[in-house]
Protein backbone atom coordinates (compact mmCIF):
# COMPACT_ATOMS: atom_id res chain seq x y z
CA UNK A 1 0.00 0.00 0.00
CA UNK A 2 1.30 3.44 -0.90
CA UNK A 3 0.82 5.90 1.95
CA UNK A 4 1.12 9.69 1.70
CA UNK A 5 0.57 12.44 4.26
CA UNK A 6 -1.15 15.63 3.12
CA UNK A 7 -1.17 18.63 5.42
CA UNK A 8 -1.57 22.36 5.15
CA UNK A 9 -3.20 25.39 6.72
CA UNK A 10 -7.00 25.37 7.14
CA UNK A 11 -8.95 25.88 3.90
CA UNK A 12 -5.84 25.83 1.75
CA UNK A 13 -7.43 23.29 -0.61
CA UNK A 14 -6.23 19.95 0.76
CA UNK A 15 -9.54 18.17 0.27
CA UNK A 16 -10.07 19.65 -3.19
CA UNK A 17 -6.62 18.54 -4.34
CA UNK A 18 -6.99 15.05 -2.82
CA UNK A 19 -10.39 14.67 -4.50
CA UNK A 20 -8.89 15.53 -7.90
CA UNK A 21 -6.08 13.03 -7.34
CA UNK A 22 -8.62 10.39 -6.27
CA UNK A 23 -10.47 10.90 -9.56
CA UNK A 24 -7.26 10.35 -11.50
CA UNK A 25 -6.32 7.28 -9.43
CA UNK A 26 -9.81 5.82 -9.79
CA UNK A 27 -9.56 6.21 -13.56
CA UNK A 28 -6.63 3.81 -13.21
CA UNK A 29 -8.81 1.41 -11.18
CA UNK A 30 -7.01 1.79 -7.86
CA UNK A 31 -8.62 1.17 -4.47
CA UNK A 32 -8.16 4.17 -2.19
CA UNK A 33 -8.58 4.98 1.48
CA UNK A 34 -8.51 8.39 3.15
CA UNK A 35 -8.06 9.31 6.80
CA UNK A 36 -9.10 12.79 7.79
CA UNK A 37 -7.79 14.39 10.99
CA UNK A 38 -9.28 17.58 12.32
CA UNK A 39 -9.90 19.37 15.58
CA UNK A 40 -13.52 20.04 16.18
CA UNK A 41 -15.55 19.36 13.10
CA UNK A 42 -15.23 18.34 9.48
CA UNK A 43 -17.49 17.45 6.59
CA UNK A 44 -14.62 16.30 4.43
CA UNK A 45 -15.41 12.65 5.21
CA UNK A 46 -18.76 12.91 3.42
CA UNK A 47 -17.05 14.48 0.39
CA UNK A 48 -14.64 11.56 0.25
CA UNK A 49 -17.38 8.98 0.85
CA UNK A 50 -19.27 10.42 -2.13
CA UNK A 51 -16.32 9.48 -4.32
CA UNK A 52 -16.70 5.92 -3.17
CA UNK A 53 -13.41 5.70 -1.31
CA UNK A 54 -12.94 4.20 2.15
CA UNK A 55 -12.96 6.94 4.82
CA UNK A 56 -11.97 7.19 8.45
CA UNK A 57 -12.36 10.37 10.49
CA UNK A 58 -10.54 11.36 13.67
CA UNK A 59 -11.35 14.47 15.71
CA UNK A 60 -8.70 15.50 18.20
CA UNK A 61 -10.91 17.78 20.26
CA UNK A 62 -8.77 19.40 22.93
CA UNK A 63 -5.47 17.91 21.73
CA UNK A 64 -3.09 19.29 19.17
CA UNK A 65 -4.31 17.52 16.01
CA UNK A 66 -0.78 16.55 15.01
CA UNK A 67 -0.09 14.90 18.37
CA UNK A 68 -3.37 13.08 17.92
CA UNK A 69 -2.32 12.14 14.39
CA UNK A 70 0.91 10.51 15.45
CA UNK A 71 -0.79 8.51 18.19
CA UNK A 72 -3.27 7.05 15.72
CA UNK A 73 -1.66 6.84 12.33
CA UNK A 74 -0.11 3.41 12.73
CA UNK A 75 -3.55 1.92 13.41
CA UNK A 76 -4.91 3.78 10.39
CA UNK A 77 -2.25 2.28 8.15
CA UNK A 78 -3.12 -1.18 9.43
CA UNK A 79 -6.80 -0.45 8.77
CA UNK A 80 -6.06 0.64 5.19
CA UNK A 81 -3.92 -2.42 4.57
CA UNK A 82 -6.53 -4.81 6.01
CA UNK A 83 -9.18 -3.29 3.79
CA UNK A 84 -7.12 -3.87 0.69
CA UNK A 85 -6.34 -0.23 -0.17
CA UNK A 86 -3.63 0.35 -2.75
CA UNK A 87 -3.36 3.99 -1.72
CA UNK A 88 -3.90 5.52 1.70
CA UNK A 89 -3.93 9.30 2.01
CA UNK A 90 -4.08 11.19 5.29
CA UNK A 91 -5.40 14.74 5.40
CA UNK A 92 -4.62 16.85 8.42
CA UNK A 93 -5.06 20.56 8.98
CA UNK A 94 -1.94 22.14 10.39
CA UNK A 95 -3.33 24.28 13.12
CA UNK A 96 -0.37 25.01 15.32
CA UNK A 97 2.23 25.83 12.60
CA UNK A 98 4.91 24.18 14.68
CA UNK A 99 3.89 20.52 14.57
CA UNK A 100 3.88 18.50 11.38
CA UNK A 101 2.66 15.03 10.54
CA UNK A 102 5.48 14.25 8.13
CA UNK A 103 7.17 10.90 8.61
CA UNK A 104 10.62 9.86 7.39
CA UNK A 105 10.44 7.74 4.19
CA UNK A 106 6.75 8.56 3.67
CA UNK A 107 5.96 11.01 0.87
CA UNK A 108 4.94 14.26 2.55
CA UNK A 109 2.77 16.83 0.79
CA UNK A 110 2.00 20.32 2.03
CA UNK A 111 -0.86 22.25 0.44
CA UNK A 112 -0.74 26.02 0.67
CA UNK A 113 -2.68 28.63 -1.29
CA UNK A 114 -1.71 31.68 -3.29
CA UNK A 115 -4.05 33.90 -1.30
CA UNK A 116 -2.30 33.41 2.01
CA UNK A 117 0.19 36.25 1.54
CA UNK A 118 3.87 36.54 0.58
CA UNK A 119 5.12 36.10 4.12
CA UNK A 120 3.10 33.01 5.00
CA UNK A 121 5.66 30.50 3.71
CA UNK A 122 8.12 31.92 6.23
CA UNK A 123 5.67 31.53 9.08
CA UNK A 124 4.83 27.89 8.54
CA UNK A 125 7.17 25.46 10.27
CA UNK A 126 8.26 21.91 9.41
CA UNK A 127 4.91 21.11 7.83
CA UNK A 128 6.03 23.20 4.84
CA UNK A 129 9.78 23.28 5.32
CA UNK A 130 10.22 19.50 5.45
CA UNK A 131 7.63 18.48 2.83
CA UNK A 132 8.72 16.58 -0.30
CA UNK A 133 6.02 18.09 -2.48
CA UNK A 134 4.49 21.51 -2.03
CA UNK A 135 1.18 22.00 -3.82
CA UNK A 136 0.12 25.58 -4.36
CA UNK A 137 -3.60 26.10 -5.02
CA UNK A 138 -5.94 28.91 -6.05
CA UNK A 139 -3.63 30.10 -8.82
CA UNK A 140 -6.75 30.83 -10.87
CA UNK A 141 -7.43 33.82 -8.65
CA UNK A 142 -4.09 35.58 -9.17
CA UNK A 143 -1.84 36.51 -12.08
CA UNK A 144 0.99 34.34 -13.36
CA UNK A 145 3.63 36.69 -11.97
CA UNK A 146 2.08 36.55 -8.54
CA UNK A 147 2.05 32.75 -8.73
CA UNK A 148 5.75 32.84 -9.56
CA UNK A 149 6.61 35.24 -6.78
CA UNK A 150 4.68 33.11 -4.32
CA UNK A 151 6.35 29.92 -5.55
CA UNK A 152 9.77 31.52 -5.20
CA UNK A 153 8.97 32.40 -1.58
CA UNK A 154 8.07 28.76 -1.00
CA UNK A 155 11.21 27.64 -2.76
CA UNK A 156 13.22 29.85 -0.45
CA UNK A 157 12.06 28.03 2.68
CA UNK A 158 11.98 24.55 1.13
CA UNK A 159 14.49 24.52 -1.73
CA UNK A 160 14.53 20.73 -2.07
CA UNK A 161 10.80 20.25 -2.62
CA UNK A 162 8.96 19.67 -5.87
CA UNK A 163 6.63 22.64 -6.16
CA UNK A 164 3.44 22.23 -8.20
CA UNK A 165 0.59 24.59 -8.99
CA UNK A 166 -2.77 22.85 -8.92
CA UNK A 167 -6.27 24.13 -9.36
CA UNK A 168 -8.39 22.41 -6.72
CA UNK A 169 -11.60 23.13 -8.58
CA UNK A 170 -10.84 22.30 -12.22
CA UNK A 171 -8.12 19.80 -11.35
CA UNK A 172 -5.56 21.40 -13.65
CA UNK A 173 -2.21 19.92 -12.65
CA UNK A 174 -3.77 17.06 -10.65
CA UNK A 175 -2.87 14.59 -13.35
CA UNK A 176 0.77 15.54 -12.99
CA UNK A 177 0.59 15.29 -9.19
CA UNK A 178 -0.94 11.84 -9.48
CA UNK A 179 2.11 10.61 -11.35
CA UNK A 180 4.12 11.48 -8.23
CA UNK A 181 1.67 9.57 -6.02
CA UNK A 182 2.52 6.50 -8.08
CA UNK A 183 6.13 6.73 -6.96
CA UNK A 184 5.33 6.99 -3.23
CA UNK A 185 6.89 4.26 -1.11
CA UNK A 186 5.02 0.99 -0.71
CA UNK A 187 4.65 -0.01 2.96
CA UNK A 188 2.95 -2.63 5.12
CA UNK A 189 3.28 -0.91 8.47
CA UNK A 190 4.60 2.25 10.08
CA UNK A 191 6.34 0.30 12.83
CA UNK A 192 9.88 1.56 13.32
CA UNK A 193 9.35 4.76 11.35
CA UNK A 194 10.07 8.14 12.87
CA UNK A 195 8.64 11.63 12.60
CA UNK A 196 10.66 14.04 10.49
CA UNK A 197 10.62 16.49 13.31
CA UNK A 198 9.83 16.28 16.98
CA UNK A 199 6.61 17.88 18.14
CA UNK A 200 7.11 20.54 20.78
CA UNK A 201 6.57 19.68 24.40
CA UNK A 202 3.33 21.35 25.36
CA UNK A 203 3.28 20.65 29.02
CA UNK A 204 2.16 23.72 30.89
CA UNK A 205 -0.79 23.88 33.24
CA UNK A 206 -2.97 25.25 30.42
CA UNK A 207 -2.36 22.09 28.41
CA UNK A 208 -3.87 20.26 31.33
CA UNK A 209 -7.06 22.26 31.46
CA UNK A 210 -6.18 25.29 33.59
CA UNK A 211 -8.29 28.35 32.65
CA UNK A 212 -7.39 30.88 35.38
CA UNK A 213 -4.95 33.63 34.42
CA UNK A 214 -2.06 34.55 36.70
CA UNK A 215 1.46 33.46 37.62
CA UNK A 216 0.32 31.30 40.52
CA UNK A 217 -1.60 29.00 38.16
CA UNK A 218 1.28 28.44 35.77
CA UNK A 219 3.29 25.28 36.23
CA UNK A 220 5.45 23.09 34.06
CA UNK A 221 7.04 24.24 30.82
CA UNK A 222 6.22 27.98 30.91
CA UNK A 223 8.09 30.62 28.97
CA UNK A 224 7.83 34.38 29.52
CA UNK A 225 8.10 37.27 27.07
CA UNK A 226 10.86 39.78 27.64
CA UNK A 227 9.06 42.97 28.68
CA UNK A 228 12.21 45.03 29.33
CA UNK A 229 13.84 45.16 25.94
CA UNK A 230 12.02 47.84 23.96
CA UNK A 231 14.68 48.79 21.46
Amino acid at each position, binding site marked *: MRFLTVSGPPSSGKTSVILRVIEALQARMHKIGVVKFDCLLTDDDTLYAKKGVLVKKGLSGALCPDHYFVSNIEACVTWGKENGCEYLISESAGLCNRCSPHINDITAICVIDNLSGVNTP*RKIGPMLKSADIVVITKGD*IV*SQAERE*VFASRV*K*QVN*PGAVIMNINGITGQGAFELTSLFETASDIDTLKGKTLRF*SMPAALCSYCLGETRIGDEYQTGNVRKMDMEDNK
Partner: protein
Amino acid sequence: MRHVALYQQPLTTTLADHPYIEDFLSSFGLPVAASNNSLEHYLDQLNPDLLEDLGLSREQLQRSLDDFLNGMLALRKPLDKVESLTIIGGHNKSGEAEEVELTLQPGEVTCIVGPTGSGKSRLLADIEWVAQGDTPTGRKILINDQVPDSQWRFSTEHKLVAQLSQNMNFVMDLTAEEFIQMHAESRLVTNPQEKVAQILEQANMLAGEQFCPDTPVTALSGGQSRALMIADMAFLSKSPIALIDEIENAGIDRKKALNLLIREEKIVLMATHDPILALMGDRRLVIKNGGIAKVIKANEAERRNLQRLEEMDNQLLALRNRIRSGETLEQL
Protein backbone atom coordinates in the same frame (compact mmCIF):
# COMPACT_ATOMS: atom_id res chain seq x y z
CA MET B 1 26.74 19.38 -4.63
CA ARG B 2 28.50 21.26 -1.82
CA HIS B 3 30.10 24.62 -2.40
CA VAL B 4 32.97 24.26 0.00
CA ALA B 5 34.70 27.60 -0.53
CA LEU B 6 31.49 29.41 0.02
CA TYR B 7 31.15 27.86 3.47
CA GLN B 8 34.73 28.49 4.51
CA GLN B 9 35.65 31.95 3.31
CA PRO B 10 34.76 34.97 5.48
CA LEU B 11 31.04 35.83 5.56
CA THR B 12 31.88 39.28 4.22
CA THR B 13 32.94 37.73 0.93
CA THR B 14 30.20 35.10 0.81
CA LEU B 15 27.43 37.62 1.49
CA ALA B 16 28.81 40.07 -1.06
CA ASP B 17 28.87 37.39 -3.76
CA HIS B 18 25.60 35.76 -2.76
CA PRO B 19 23.40 38.42 -1.16
CA TYR B 20 20.38 36.07 -1.33
CA ILE B 21 21.90 33.95 1.46
CA GLU B 22 20.99 36.69 3.89
CA ASP B 23 17.41 36.62 2.64
CA PHE B 24 17.34 32.84 2.84
CA LEU B 25 18.45 32.83 6.48
CA SER B 26 16.11 35.63 7.43
CA SER B 27 13.22 33.65 5.96
CA PHE B 28 14.01 31.10 8.68
CA GLY B 29 14.12 33.88 11.27
CA LEU B 30 17.92 33.74 11.48
CA PRO B 31 19.72 37.08 11.21
CA VAL B 32 23.23 37.04 9.75
CA ALA B 33 25.79 39.84 9.44
CA ALA B 34 29.01 40.18 7.47
CA SER B 35 32.09 39.27 9.49
CA ASN B 36 35.43 37.54 9.24
CA ASN B 37 33.91 34.29 10.45
CA SER B 38 32.81 31.71 7.91
CA LEU B 39 29.30 30.58 7.06
CA GLU B 40 30.24 27.18 8.48
CA HIS B 41 31.13 28.84 11.75
CA TYR B 42 27.88 30.78 11.73
CA LEU B 43 25.85 27.58 11.30
CA ASP B 44 27.86 25.76 13.96
CA GLN B 45 27.29 28.39 16.60
CA LEU B 46 23.51 28.54 16.15
CA ASN B 47 21.80 27.66 19.40
CA PRO B 48 20.16 24.22 19.08
CA ASP B 49 17.28 25.38 21.31
CA LEU B 50 16.62 28.26 18.95
CA LEU B 51 16.62 25.87 16.00
CA GLU B 52 14.30 23.52 17.87
CA ASP B 53 11.91 26.44 18.44
CA LEU B 54 11.97 27.17 14.73
CA GLY B 55 11.22 23.54 13.95
CA LEU B 56 14.61 23.01 12.35
CA SER B 57 17.70 20.95 12.83
CA ARG B 58 21.26 21.88 11.91
CA GLU B 59 21.35 19.11 9.26
CA GLN B 60 18.03 20.12 7.78
CA LEU B 61 19.06 23.77 7.58
CA GLN B 62 22.31 22.73 5.94
CA ARG B 63 20.48 20.56 3.40
CA SER B 64 18.04 23.34 2.57
CA LEU B 65 20.84 25.84 2.16
CA ASP B 66 22.69 23.47 -0.20
CA ASP B 67 19.55 22.94 -2.28
CA PHE B 68 18.88 26.65 -2.30
CA LEU B 69 22.42 27.47 -3.42
CA ASN B 70 22.26 24.83 -6.15
CA GLY B 71 19.06 26.43 -7.41
CA MET B 72 20.49 29.93 -7.31
CA LEU B 73 23.74 28.92 -8.98
CA ALA B 74 21.75 27.09 -11.67
CA LEU B 75 20.07 30.38 -12.50
CA ARG B 76 23.45 31.81 -13.38
CA LYS B 77 24.16 29.09 -15.92
CA PRO B 78 22.88 29.74 -19.40
CA LEU B 79 19.84 27.77 -20.52
CA ASP B 80 20.21 24.93 -22.96
CA LYS B 81 19.12 26.35 -26.25
CA VAL B 82 15.73 25.23 -27.52
CA GLU B 83 15.83 25.04 -31.28
CA SER B 84 12.58 23.23 -31.85
CA LEU B 85 9.45 21.97 -30.15
CA THR B 86 7.68 18.99 -31.67
CA ILE B 87 4.10 17.95 -30.91
CA ILE B 88 3.37 14.33 -31.79
CA GLY B 89 -0.36 13.63 -31.89
CA GLY B 90 -2.09 11.23 -29.50
CA HIS B 91 -5.86 10.79 -29.63
CA ASN B 92 -8.95 12.95 -29.22
CA LYS B 93 -11.66 12.55 -26.59
CA SER B 94 -13.31 9.77 -28.59
CA GLY B 95 -10.05 7.87 -28.75
CA GLU B 96 -9.51 8.51 -32.47
CA ALA B 97 -5.91 9.04 -33.52
CA GLU B 98 -4.74 12.61 -33.77
CA GLU B 99 -2.72 12.48 -36.92
CA VAL B 100 -0.33 15.37 -36.64
CA GLU B 101 3.33 15.88 -36.10
CA LEU B 102 4.23 19.51 -35.85
CA THR B 103 7.56 21.21 -35.31
CA LEU B 104 7.65 24.78 -34.03
CA GLN B 105 10.70 27.01 -34.14
CA PRO B 106 11.86 30.09 -32.21
CA GLY B 107 10.37 33.31 -33.55
CA GLU B 108 7.22 31.53 -34.74
CA VAL B 109 3.78 32.38 -33.44
CA THR B 110 1.21 29.57 -33.40
CA CYS B 111 -2.41 30.39 -32.64
CA ILE B 112 -4.72 27.87 -31.02
CA VAL B 113 -8.41 28.17 -31.80
CA GLY B 114 -11.43 26.06 -30.95
CA PRO B 115 -14.69 26.13 -29.02
CA THR B 116 -14.80 26.22 -25.26
CA GLY B 117 -14.05 22.84 -23.69
CA SER B 118 -12.40 21.61 -26.88
CA GLY B 119 -9.00 21.11 -25.26
CA LYS B 120 -6.95 24.27 -25.86
CA SER B 121 -5.78 24.48 -22.27
CA ARG B 122 -5.00 20.75 -22.30
CA LEU B 123 -2.70 21.25 -25.28
CA LEU B 124 -0.89 24.06 -23.46
CA ALA B 125 -0.67 21.85 -20.35
CA ASP B 126 0.77 18.96 -22.40
CA ILE B 127 3.54 21.26 -23.60
CA GLU B 128 4.21 22.62 -20.12
CA TRP B 129 4.41 19.07 -18.72
CA VAL B 130 6.50 17.91 -21.69
CA ALA B 131 4.00 15.04 -22.02
CA GLN B 132 5.34 11.61 -22.95
CA GLY B 133 2.09 9.80 -23.66
CA ASP B 134 1.28 10.11 -19.96
CA THR B 135 -1.59 12.62 -20.12
CA PRO B 136 -5.25 12.09 -21.16
CA THR B 137 -4.42 13.01 -24.78
CA GLY B 138 -1.54 10.55 -25.24
CA ARG B 139 0.52 13.30 -26.90
CA LYS B 140 4.30 13.36 -26.91
CA ILE B 141 6.42 16.49 -26.83
CA LEU B 142 10.00 16.58 -28.10
CA ILE B 143 12.54 19.32 -27.55
CA ASN B 144 15.31 19.60 -30.16
CA ASP B 145 13.99 16.32 -31.66
CA GLN B 146 14.61 14.45 -28.42
CA VAL B 147 12.76 13.28 -25.35
CA PRO B 148 13.97 15.90 -22.92
CA ASP B 149 15.35 15.38 -19.47
CA SER B 150 12.46 15.17 -17.00
CA GLN B 151 14.12 17.98 -15.02
CA TRP B 152 12.09 20.36 -17.20
CA ARG B 153 9.00 19.17 -15.42
CA PHE B 154 9.87 20.36 -11.98
CA SER B 155 12.54 22.96 -12.38
CA THR B 156 11.51 26.34 -11.10
CA GLU B 157 14.81 27.92 -12.13
CA HIS B 158 14.92 26.78 -15.71
CA LYS B 159 11.34 26.78 -16.70
CA LEU B 160 10.75 25.63 -20.23
CA VAL B 161 7.51 27.48 -20.46
CA ALA B 162 6.34 30.90 -19.36
CA GLN B 163 2.59 31.35 -19.23
CA LEU B 164 0.50 34.44 -19.52
CA SER B 165 -2.87 33.36 -18.24
CA GLN B 166 -6.19 35.12 -18.51
CA ASN B 167 -6.32 36.05 -14.88
CA MET B 168 -4.64 39.31 -13.97
CA ASN B 169 -5.74 39.78 -10.38
CA PHE B 170 -3.40 40.52 -7.54
CA VAL B 171 -3.86 39.85 -3.86
CA MET B 172 -0.38 40.70 -2.59
CA ASP B 173 0.03 43.77 -0.52
CA LEU B 174 2.83 45.38 -2.55
CA THR B 175 3.32 48.36 -4.85
CA ALA B 176 3.88 47.79 -8.57
CA GLU B 177 7.57 48.54 -8.13
CA GLU B 178 8.02 46.29 -5.08
CA PHE B 179 6.20 43.50 -6.82
CA ILE B 180 8.33 43.61 -9.98
CA GLN B 181 11.43 43.99 -7.83
CA MET B 182 10.54 40.84 -5.92
CA HIS B 183 9.86 38.99 -9.13
CA ALA B 184 13.17 40.15 -10.61
CA GLU B 185 15.04 39.04 -7.49
CA SER B 186 13.46 35.60 -7.64
CA ARG B 187 14.76 35.34 -11.20
CA LEU B 188 18.18 36.57 -10.14
CA VAL B 189 18.43 39.07 -12.99
CA THR B 190 21.74 40.87 -13.20
CA ASN B 191 20.62 44.49 -12.92
CA PRO B 192 17.25 44.45 -11.18
CA GLN B 193 16.87 48.23 -10.75
CA GLU B 194 17.25 48.84 -14.45
CA LYS B 195 14.94 45.97 -15.42
CA VAL B 196 12.25 47.14 -13.03
CA ALA B 197 12.34 50.66 -14.43
CA GLN B 198 12.18 49.30 -17.97
CA ILE B 199 9.18 47.10 -17.19
CA LEU B 200 7.25 49.90 -15.53
CA GLU B 201 7.95 52.20 -18.49
CA GLN B 202 6.90 49.62 -21.09
CA ALA B 203 3.78 48.74 -19.12
CA ASN B 204 2.77 52.38 -19.11
CA MET B 205 3.23 52.49 -22.87
CA LEU B 206 0.86 49.54 -23.31
CA ALA B 207 -1.78 50.66 -20.83
CA GLY B 208 -4.32 53.29 -21.70
CA GLU B 209 -4.07 55.08 -18.36
CA GLN B 210 -0.72 55.74 -16.70
CA PHE B 211 0.13 54.41 -13.25
CA CYS B 212 2.94 55.22 -10.80
CA PRO B 213 5.60 52.85 -9.45
CA ASP B 214 4.07 53.22 -5.99
CA THR B 215 0.53 52.28 -7.02
CA PRO B 216 -0.45 49.15 -5.04
CA VAL B 217 -0.80 46.22 -7.45
CA THR B 218 -4.25 45.57 -6.03
CA ALA B 219 -5.33 49.05 -7.20
CA LEU B 220 -4.33 48.59 -10.84
CA SER B 221 -7.12 48.45 -13.40
CA GLY B 222 -7.60 45.34 -15.52
CA GLY B 223 -5.78 46.90 -18.48
CA GLN B 224 -2.94 48.20 -16.30
CA SER B 225 -2.41 44.82 -14.64
CA ARG B 226 -2.36 43.09 -17.98
CA ALA B 227 0.10 45.63 -19.39
CA LEU B 228 2.32 45.14 -16.36
CA MET B 229 2.22 41.34 -16.74
CA ILE B 230 3.04 41.48 -20.43
CA ALA B 231 6.00 43.78 -19.87
CA ASP B 232 7.08 41.59 -16.96
CA MET B 233 6.98 38.48 -19.13
CA ALA B 234 8.80 40.19 -21.99
CA PHE B 235 11.69 41.42 -19.84
CA LEU B 236 12.03 38.93 -16.99
CA SER B 237 11.20 35.57 -18.48
CA LYS B 238 14.08 33.55 -19.83
CA SER B 239 11.85 30.63 -20.80
CA PRO B 240 12.23 29.71 -24.47
CA ILE B 241 8.53 28.93 -24.89
CA ALA B 242 5.69 31.35 -24.16
CA LEU B 243 2.07 30.30 -23.79
CA ILE B 244 -0.48 33.09 -23.96
CA ASP B 245 -4.14 32.70 -23.14
CA GLU B 246 -6.33 35.30 -24.87
CA ILE B 247 -4.76 38.73 -24.54
CA GLU B 248 -7.54 40.40 -26.49
CA ASN B 249 -10.00 41.17 -23.71
CA ALA B 250 -7.79 43.81 -22.19
CA GLY B 251 -7.71 47.57 -22.41
CA ILE B 252 -4.26 47.49 -23.99
CA ASP B 253 -2.57 47.90 -27.33
CA ARG B 254 -2.57 44.21 -28.21
CA LYS B 255 -0.45 44.47 -31.33
CA LYS B 256 2.28 46.30 -29.45
CA ALA B 257 1.93 43.71 -26.70
CA LEU B 258 2.42 40.80 -29.06
CA ASN B 259 5.40 42.47 -30.68
CA LEU B 260 6.98 42.98 -27.29
CA LEU B 261 6.50 39.31 -26.47
CA ILE B 262 7.87 37.93 -29.72
CA ARG B 263 10.78 40.35 -29.80
CA GLU B 264 13.04 37.78 -28.17
CA GLU B 265 13.21 34.69 -30.34
CA LYS B 266 10.72 32.59 -28.40
CA ILE B 267 8.39 29.86 -29.52
CA VAL B 268 4.99 31.45 -28.94
CA LEU B 269 1.66 29.60 -28.65
CA MET B 270 -1.41 31.71 -28.18
CA ALA B 271 -5.03 30.77 -27.63
CA THR B 272 -7.00 33.51 -29.33
CA HIS B 273 -10.21 34.37 -31.16
CA ASP B 274 -9.10 37.82 -32.20
CA PRO B 275 -8.90 37.97 -36.01
CA ILE B 276 -5.98 40.40 -35.99
CA LEU B 277 -3.88 38.34 -33.60
CA ALA B 278 -4.85 35.16 -35.43
CA LEU B 279 -3.64 36.59 -38.74
CA MET B 280 -0.39 37.75 -37.17
CA GLY B 281 0.43 34.12 -36.39
CA ASP B 282 2.41 31.85 -38.68
CA ARG B 283 -0.16 29.07 -38.35
CA ARG B 284 -3.37 28.16 -36.56
CA LEU B 285 -4.17 24.91 -34.84
CA VAL B 286 -7.87 24.15 -34.85
CA ILE B 287 -8.85 22.06 -31.82
CA LYS B 288 -11.98 19.93 -31.88
CA ASN B 289 -13.12 17.29 -29.42
CA GLY B 290 -9.75 17.22 -27.67
CA GLY B 291 -7.61 16.80 -30.77
CA ILE B 292 -5.83 19.00 -33.31
CA ALA B 293 -8.29 18.69 -36.20
CA LYS B 294 -6.62 21.00 -38.68
CA VAL B 295 -3.51 23.09 -39.17
CA ILE B 296 -4.00 26.27 -41.19
CA LYS B 297 -0.86 27.93 -42.53
CA ALA B 298 -0.81 31.69 -42.86
CA ASN B 299 -1.37 32.55 -46.51
CA GLU B 300 -0.95 35.64 -48.67
CA ALA B 301 -4.66 36.31 -49.10
CA GLU B 302 -5.18 36.33 -45.35
CA ARG B 303 -2.08 38.43 -44.79
CA ARG B 304 -3.35 41.00 -47.27
CA ASN B 305 -6.57 41.24 -45.31
CA LEU B 306 -4.65 41.94 -42.16
CA GLN B 307 -4.10 45.50 -43.28
CA ARG B 308 -7.83 46.02 -43.86
CA LEU B 309 -8.62 44.48 -40.49
CA GLU B 310 -6.20 46.86 -38.84
CA GLU B 311 -7.85 49.82 -40.51
CA MET B 312 -11.26 48.62 -39.30
CA ASP B 313 -9.82 48.12 -35.86
CA ASN B 314 -8.39 51.63 -35.78
CA GLN B 315 -11.75 53.05 -36.79
CA LEU B 316 -13.43 51.20 -33.95
CA LEU B 317 -10.73 52.33 -31.58
CA ALA B 318 -11.31 55.95 -32.57
CA LEU B 319 -15.02 55.52 -31.92
CA ARG B 320 -14.29 53.93 -28.59
CA ASN B 321 -12.12 56.88 -27.61
CA ARG B 322 -14.85 59.30 -28.60
CA ILE B 323 -17.32 57.45 -26.38
CA ARG B 324 -14.79 57.52 -23.54
CA SER B 325 -14.28 61.23 -23.80
CA GLY B 326 -18.03 61.84 -23.67
CA GLU B 327 -18.74 62.62 -27.32
CA THR B 328 -21.81 61.40 -29.19
CA LEU B 329 -21.71 59.16 -32.25
CA GLU B 330 -24.53 60.76 -34.23
CA GLN B 331 -21.96 61.37 -36.94
CA LEU B 332 -19.47 58.55 -37.66
